[in-house]
């Protein structure tokens, strides 16, 4: 597919009387894993909700696969995993997947395939209520994969998972990207940055970097992404603070 999967221009979002996003501009390409990194509360979730089309925008445009975010035609072409797992606690893993597969009109075989993708084959008949937090978020991830969507928006999908599993999930994200999907993954853990093809660094509702991990390190002279983040913040905040001094 040509062009970008997601294009964001002049995006401003206010929640209540607080401005959460301050005029963002960026694109998410096909076939890559793009990491959205930044501290808690910097606006990652609001940005992701804007791309999914469930967030009311104050200004700007969000285009997904050439259509305005939230368009009817996008509803089975975008997979979204919220931070808190959005699945039914009182149903089993399989019952959850079968239900969402029916809603999406996905073929029945996808349920089994997605169970394997997230490594939950052994838990298929367990009630979601009885699963651990990490297992629950994997059920939620499996639901997002059901329709084999060309765009995946994943809000902190690896939080609290054991390192082995985390590595496997990242491998899955790269496989999905390898088959052409645009994968946008958020995290507040900076060490996950090295696993991404591209990085969007975010702070206080603004993007402070949009680059590959290697170029970001080169540009800032830092040894890791956390260092690069600090360097960029210092660069950004420095002049403003200097100006504010009497």
């Amino acid at each position, binding site marked *: 597919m040509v062009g970008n999967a997601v294009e964001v221009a002049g995006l401003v979002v206010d929640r209540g009387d607080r401005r959460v996003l301050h005029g963002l501009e960026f694109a998410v390409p096909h076939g890559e894993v793009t990491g959205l990194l930044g501290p808690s509360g910097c606006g990652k979730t609001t940005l992701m909700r804007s791309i999914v089309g469930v967030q009311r925008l104050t200004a700007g445009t969000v285009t997904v696969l050439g259509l305005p975010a939230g368009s009817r035609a996008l509803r089975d072409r975008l997979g979204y995993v919220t931070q808190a797992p959005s699945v039914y606690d009182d149903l089993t893993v399989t*019952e959850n997947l079968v239900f969402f597969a029916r809603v999406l009109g996905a073929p029945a075989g996808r349920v089994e395939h997605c169970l394997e993708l997230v490594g939950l084959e052994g838990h298929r008949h367990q009630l979601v209520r009885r699963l651990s937090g990490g297992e629950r978020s994997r059920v939620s991830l499996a639901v997002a994969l059901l329709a084999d969507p060309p765009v995946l928006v994943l809000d902190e999908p690896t939080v609290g998972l054991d390192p082995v599993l985390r590595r496997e999930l990242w491998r899955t994200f790269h496989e999905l990207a390898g088959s052409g999907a645009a994968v946008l993954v958020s995290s507040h853990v900076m060490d996950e940055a090295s696993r991404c093809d591209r990085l969007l660094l975010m702070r206080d509702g603004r993007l402070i970097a949009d680059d590959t991990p290697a170029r970001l390190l080169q540009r800032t002279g830092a040894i890791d992404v956390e260092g690069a983040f600090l360097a960029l913040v210092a660069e950004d905040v420095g002049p403003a603070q200097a100006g504010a001094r009497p």
Partner: protein
Amino acid sequence: MRARTTLAVALRVLTQLRRDRRTLAMLVVLPCVMLVLLWWMFQGTGLGPGFDSLGPPLLALIPFIVMFLVTSVTTLRERTSGTLERLLAMPMGKADFLLGYALAFGLMAAVQSVFAVAVCVGLLGMGVAGSVWTLLVVAVLDAVLGTALGLFVSAFAQTEFQAVQFMPALVIPQILLCGLFIARHAMPGVLHAVSDVLPLSYGVDAMQQVAGSTASGQAWADVGVVVAWIAVCLGLGAATLRRRSA
């Protein structure tokens, strides 16, 4: 509107109910126990209006109240758990969602009403001049009315505590004014006029018509009003489902 998604929602809600054995048992057993209690209270007293005249209104009230509570709490849970937002970001019509719920709870209400009517007519010997089948249809429609109203008001509650408070706000006034305590035409003019607008008045009127007379014309006219109210509540409910939020 699509049958596929409507049925998927209905099946899912029924699976959840099947898991919750205690709620299921209470839905079926409690109305019967209350009706037996009502019958027993009048035994040998020769006082008051008697079971034959109070039984039919209660057959309308109980399924209405129970389904109102069950539905408003269940839908609220769906709204707060994030699953509703997830569904609305999928190819799921708002009407599909509401009708799926109405279908599942309507079916539950039918089972509940079959038991309640069987106990009243078969076991306790309640006199029914009209058709017992019509009585059953009216009972089921009253339950669906409760479901539709519950779906609508769940939009205005942020917590389960608030949802339950809608019972004294919206249900108890209807019980007071439905003609159970004083015939509606004998009430002060203003209250009579108010009772003419409230849906439960027609549910109870229909019940009394079927139980008290063999002519079914008036009962069906009342049923028509109840059905119209169901449609209005579902329409209002659909209007409260938002794909985008601030």
